């Protein structure tokens, strides 16, 4: 889910993923990269007042029966999956987090993760963890994971979606229930909850209210607004060949 930050910007408001929240303390966590984040936001200090608008959009929808959750992200997508990591751990699920980065210097510290999560790192230069692409680790966990959530570069998500498409066949999973036809239109939440893979897309420039249509992505059944129907989608909801 997202928040909009109205001040001090007047036109395209910054849209910030909610990286965590605690109901009992009434806190919301936003993760900012000091190198690229808005200076005014980074400079906020305790007791400063700021106004945000939200929550906006739809988050991940994990099936209640899922006991093993695989979470996948690169640096760009981490803020969009972090809240789900906390929730899954708090719900007693077993969680494995696969994180990919170019080098050790860009790996998210484990202190930002729930203690209960297994943390597996892949770096392209081999300076930490598995040497190579994050995608090479996914097949190791796909049988174990009841569901997978992911966020990051579109190329990463598209590759994961390709893996997810072949998963049922690789694992010999039977499809139960009536076939409803190739173009069956399911309710979005049920589609999402049934999907083995759900992805959170970044919000590009736009109003974040579902009005301007600047954030639309191609869906399998028509255009989808990242700010309103997303940012989390079941992987089969998206038309990856047109992304």
């Amino acid at each position: 889910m997202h928040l909009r930050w109205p001040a001090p910007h007047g036109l395209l408001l910054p849209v910030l993923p909610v990286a965590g929240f605690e109901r009992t303390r009434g806190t919301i966590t936003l993760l900012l990269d000091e190198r690229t984040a808005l200076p005014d936001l980074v400079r906020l200090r305790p007791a400063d007042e700021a106004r945000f608008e939200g929550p906006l959009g739809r988050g991940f929808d994990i099936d209640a029966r899922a006991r093993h959750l695989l979470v996948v992200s690169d640096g760009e997508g981490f803020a969009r999956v972090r809240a789900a990591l906390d929730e899954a751990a708090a719900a007693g699920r077993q969680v494995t987090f696969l994180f990919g980065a170019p080098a050790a210097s860009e790996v998210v510290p484990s202190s930002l993760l729930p203690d209960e999560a297994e943390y597996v790192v892949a770096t392209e230069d081999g300076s930490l963890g598995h040497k190579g692409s994050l995608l090479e680790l996914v097949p190791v966990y796909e049988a174990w994971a009841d569901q997978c959530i992911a966020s990051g570069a579109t190329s990463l998500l598209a590759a994961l979606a390709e893996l997810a498409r072949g998963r049922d066949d690789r694992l010999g999973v039977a499809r139960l229930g009536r076939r409803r036809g190739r173009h069956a239109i399911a309710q979005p939440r049920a589609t999402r909850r049934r999907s083995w893979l759900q992805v959170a897309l970044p919000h590009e420039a736009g109003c974040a209210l579902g009005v301007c249509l600047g954030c639309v992505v191609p869906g399998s059944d028509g255009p989808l607004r990242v700010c309103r129907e997303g940012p989390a989608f079941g992987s089969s909801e998206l038309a990856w060949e047109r992304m």
Partner: protein
Amino acid sequence: MSIDLAPGRAGGLKVRHGVLVAAGGAGFANELLDALGDVTPGAIITSGTTRAPRRGNARPRMAALADGLLSSVGHPNPGLDAVLRRLAPRWGRADVPIIVNVCADSAEDIGWLARRLDMQPEVAGLELDLACADRGRGGLPIGLDLEASELATLAARAATDLPLVVKLSPLALDAREIARAVAAAGADAISAVGPLPALLIDDDRRRARLGTSYGGISGPALKPVALRVVYEIAQVVRIPIIGIGGISSLDDVLDFLAAGATAVGLATATLADPTLPGRLGAELETWRRNHGISEHRELVGTALPRRRDRGSLRATSALS
């Protein structure tokens, strides 16, 4: 107090105040109507709809400017029939007039759209968008061509008795000519202007920033351009003008009224604050009363040039 944006048409197009949501600021209005509460704009002009469904343009569709937006959304919509089927009932329950913006490449499509809207009781008016890219003209707006603008307006006028607002492009070499032509062809009001075509280069300098390369500037950067067009056409037409371009404050509203607009429209600013048009409408009313101005029309055209000797308007243009 209400303002009639189509005084020459039976029934008119009455709005409770002169600050509207312009096309692009509220989509097809359903989300905005649910969020407004008591803060209602004078009217809502919907985003552009077309005869056939349109997917819209390739991403990225928007980029922030220092003083505005560059956008190339491309009128994504499921086609007018689907828009009306899904949304007209909600419009019918709204306490604000809904004006539907239409975009078309041919007189035939314009006529079809106008006839279709003519049958909808929930629709208060039609905005014919001459500023949208015309794919039949290589992407150049119809509103650059005098004859095409006139024919488009005639096609809409012949097909509907709804109040007809014609939206001009800021690119027209002589906006006065276009304004005169569309007024003579039956427009009840003119809205000025649509976005200004422009381009940004991507950070890696290997491509344009937007998916379709070109986009339209909106927001504060457009205001002086829009003011120029309003100022020029107000000197040559008698029908109401809706000024559109970078309005986000009461001062902006007053500037456009002084330049000759009867009402104003906000789009980009509404994306950031959906309550802004309604709030500015209330502020305008308060300002008018506090300054002892008894009628809204006394605010209109105060900055237009006048002949010193006779007190009547002396037409000017940026071209002369």
